């Protein structure tokens, strides 16, 4: 039984990353989007306008809670105080989905404000699973893990990313966020096929999809290097991969438009969400 007028469950529609500046525009017509996703750390203050605005939005829409600072891949144990804050945000806003990244961001008490990469080995697998268990215990809810954007490969890796993610799902029972932009970014940067990656991805465990824009760059050898910048519209090849994977999934999956830098008006975000909604409507028809 939720304390909010709006139910917690995330519908199989498109949502957007919540920006405080968009509060009035969202509340003017919440039906334009299916949900908002919040970065948990932005709502860990004691009070003030962020909580007041999010509470008003939560009355109108379900919330997906996305952590960026739990550091699931950290070498050391999870920060208990931060995990408690994360669980408190979850208890306060009753999110329909809870998620974090396959990455690390803290080491020896310092926070690096980025999603840092892991080599895929038995040792890192065991550690990530242990940390996911700790999160799921703290929030008493299944968490989703998001596939990363990769800029290089580790020679010490003993398994590929898909095998690593499949093993995590099997061992912890967690769900997944499939970030299609990350798939495209990693495939371009590491020279593999995004289509093959998506064919192998354990779609049955995916409960949310992320779409975002990326920035083109190149490495010292002149090879293309895409940056997961979240600073522009979703790129055409990512839309294409998204449509393919949704058709194959055979069920509409809640989909988030992420746009965190050079943030446009809510109208622009809502239009991107509407485009995802049109694609989401297609597999529903196919499955019927």
């Amino acid at each position, binding site marked *: 039984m939720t304390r909010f007028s709006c139910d917690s469950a995330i519908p199989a529609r498109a949502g957007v990353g919540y920006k405080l500046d968009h509060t009035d525009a969202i509340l003017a017509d919440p039906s334009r989007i299916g949900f908002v996703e919040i970065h948990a*750390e932005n709502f860990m203050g004691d*009070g003030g306008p962020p909580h007041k605005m999010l509470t008003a939005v939560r009355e109108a829409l379900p919330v997906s809670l996305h952590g960026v600072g*739990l550091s699931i891949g950290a070498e050391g144990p999870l920060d208990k105080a931060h995990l408690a804050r994360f669980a408190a945000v979850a208890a306060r806003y009753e999110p329909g989905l809870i998620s974090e990244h396959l990455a690390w961001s803290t080491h*020896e008490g310092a*926070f690096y404000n980025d999603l*840092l990469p892991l080599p895929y080995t038995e040792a890192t697998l065991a550690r990530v699973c242990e940390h996911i268990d700790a999160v799921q215990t703290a929030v008493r809810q299944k968490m989703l893990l998001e596939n990363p954007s990769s800029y290089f490969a580790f*020679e*010490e890796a003993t398994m590929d990313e898909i095998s690593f993610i499949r093993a995590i799902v099997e061992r912890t029972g967690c769900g997944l966020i499939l970030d299609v932009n990350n798939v495209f970014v990693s495939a371009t940067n590491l020279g593999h096929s995004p289509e093959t990656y998506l064919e192998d991805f354990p779609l049955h465990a995916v409960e949310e999809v992320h779409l975002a824009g990326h920035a083109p*760059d190149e*490495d010292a050898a002149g090879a293309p290097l895409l940056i997961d910048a979240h600073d522009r519209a979703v790129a055409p090849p990512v839309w294409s991969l998204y449509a393919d994977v949704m058709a194959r999934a055979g069920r509409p999956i809640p989909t988030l438009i992420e746009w965190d830098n050079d943030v446009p008006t809510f109208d622009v975000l809502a239009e991107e969400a509407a485009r995802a909604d049109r694609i989401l409507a297609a597999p529903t028809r196919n499955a019927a």
Partner: protein
Amino acid sequence: MRPEGDRSPHGAFVAALGDPDRAVRGITDGRGRPAPDRMAVYRNNVAVSLQEVLGETFETTRVLMGGTFFDAAAGAFAKDNRPTSPLLFAYGEDFPAFLAALPGLKAYPFVPEVAAIEFARLGAYHAADAAPLSADSLAALPQAALPACRFTAHPAARLVKTPAGGLGAYLANQDPPETPATTDAALITRPDMTLMTAALPAPAAAFASALLAGAPLGEAAATPGVEVGPALGTLLMAGAFSGLDPGPGSA
């Protein structure tokens, strides 16, 4: 936080984040080419994102310093002072002191004061909500009880001393600009959802400092030069308190 002595894989990684001359071993472009150059993506992400966090928190400070100087200072600060938690709205507490020690700002001592005001405002923005104490609560007390009564500081109340003119510089760079009659100290409050920045003369600031620290009114009123009535009125109007303890012996 001692990457020099930290031989773990992540210790080596974070040491390389802060130093372009340190390579991370065993990374390739996925096609077999060793690609230590690609570490630059993470170096840049970390450096630029922390610089941007500081630029947003210290927006007016950045205007006063100019973007180039500020970004260089923020970058240098961030390299040696990583956030100690993922709560980035708490990051930068030591930045005003860092600025105060910069040789290039020695002639502009008001700039670190502006930074201190901005950090205090950020703290007030995220502080716990509480109803401010009304002037009526105080008026209800018998005159004889006033000297012993103590106030509870509102969770958002902050006092920043600005003897070098930081408050004037801060207010002159807001929209619309303001020119306060006095700029000795800034009282920052958030009685409801809107931040307020009030100017206090030095005696009123000392009086406010004593009351916010929990001193009895009678003791704070002994502050040299303070006009108790107007000073208390300013504090109550600004919502600096959330409670009142009438003290021992009151009914």
